[in-house]
């Protein structure tokens, strides 16, 4: 099935945060008020009741002076989601069109997904003892609507549609930006981690937007999931089997030489 996704073009974003409010509204999430930290950014990062935020990133450029970069940040809906692999209760699923969604009834708040995620996006919601994240509004999309954030965006920075079509559009836009004062403009999400089901048009390199240039699943998580979990546990049944075998053989051999074990030993 065709992937359906968001394209977020930072060059059009005014950081009005309408998407943040629309997301809260649709998902019926309460306000989370964090103390002022000398930045217009509302929250340090996503949290249990805030699936998406607009980051305000200040960059000092030797030529252009201070640059203020905005970035809508939320779950990237990876094509190959690591969170889904580590979840011990299988509460994370991927829809055919690419949304990675959580069944909160099954979530046990173990945090595995948070630390497996290369972006550390799933966040803990204490009042329900679960971790939460953006759903790509799958319940809206499956009824033919666009996600709440994309629907509300007044400048057209956020669009929703077929990924292939949006990619064509993104390439055009990057070409335009490169020719008009943004030589480092790039697409983010096309190839990262084997493809993300969220596309970004950035006016500069990803590190200027607080995004990892080459995101990777931690080697610790790979070792844990690919080696320890599937194979290591077999040592336990092997030990139990050896003990059961010994239980039988030691008694059979003792019957042949009964004097050996009289009263425990010899």
């Amino acid at each position, binding site marked *: 099935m065709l992937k359906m996704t968001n394209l977020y073009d930072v060059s059009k974003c005014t950081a009005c945060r309408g998407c943040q409010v629309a997301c809260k509204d649709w998902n019926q999430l309460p306000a989370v008020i964090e103390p002022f930290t000398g930045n217009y950014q509302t929250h340090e990062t996503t949290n249990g009741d805030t699936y998406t935020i607009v980051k305000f990133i200040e960059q000092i450029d030797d030529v252009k002076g201070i640059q203020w970069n905005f970035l809508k940040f939320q779950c990237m809906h990876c094509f190959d989601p690591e969170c889904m692999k580590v979840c011990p209760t299988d509460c994370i699923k991927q829809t055919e069109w690419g949304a990675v969604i959580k069944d909160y009834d099954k979530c046990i708040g*173990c945090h595995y997904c948070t630390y497996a995620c290369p972006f550390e996006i799933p966040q803990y919601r204490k009042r329900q003892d679960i971790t939460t994240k953006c759903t790509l509004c799958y319940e809206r999309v499956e009824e033919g609507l666009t996600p709440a954030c994309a629907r509300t965006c007044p400048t057209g920075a956020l669009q929703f549609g077929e990924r292939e079509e949006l990619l064509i559009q993104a390439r055009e836009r990057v070409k335009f930006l490169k020719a008009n004062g943004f030589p480092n403009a790039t697409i983010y999400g096309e190839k990262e981690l084997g493809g993300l089901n969220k596309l970004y048009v950035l006016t500069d390199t990803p590190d200027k937007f607080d995004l990892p240039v080459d995101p990777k699943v931690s080697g*610790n998580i790979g070792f844990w999931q690919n080696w320890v979990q599937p194979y290591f546990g077999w040592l336990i049944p092997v030990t139990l089997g050896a003990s059961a075998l010994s239980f039988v053989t030691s008694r059979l051999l003792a019957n042949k030489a009964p004097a050996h074990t009289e*009263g425990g030993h010899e």
Partner: protein
Amino acid sequence: MQWIPEYKADVPRVERFNFLARFSHWGHTVTFLLCLFTGLALFLSDAGWLAAIFGGYAGAGLVHRIAAVGLTIILAIGMVAGFKGIIAWFQDILRFGVNDIMFIVKFPLEFFGFPVKVPPQTRFNGGEKGNSMVTPTMVILLVLSGYIMWFPAIFPGGLVRVAYWTHDIAMVLGTVMVSMHAYLGSFHPGSGESFWGMWKGTVRADWAKHHHAIWYEETYGDKKDAE
């Protein structure tokens, strides 16, 4: 068929483990097994039935945490109140020598019931020394990685990711040692009397002399003739 040798009160017996050692041992047994079975609900895939015994994943998680705190408390009590005993235990482990190596080399035959002659052993034989080194290390790793996973927000993310596989490896190695230890300390015909050492605190003097000759001579040797 005999499961474990009968407890004989009317024969000369010597103390093997004091009350604190036995309290600590059985306290760890209960809390470790509770943690193990609740934890396996997450470690094994499709182990919902295991979680169901504890009232679902949330119930299993609660039991896991309560048992983990219990295990930590027992560990702390044992370390503080039994400090001298732990030092003595540690000193005996450090006496690892040729007799212990011989024991470990010959032990696989003994394990399956073949009669073997092993050199005299100290308070803990070669295999017990190995268990004494591995199991407590694994329990300490489980406790440390467990609290990191319980309160991930106060630790760096990289440490939490290390804790995930550390907890699993320590669980598997700990469980391997514990299941071997449980079998060898009870139903294995060659070491049956050692069960009473941990259950009642005393073992038959002749068994001690035969199985732990060096320890027996050093601890009770002068009393031997008085009997």
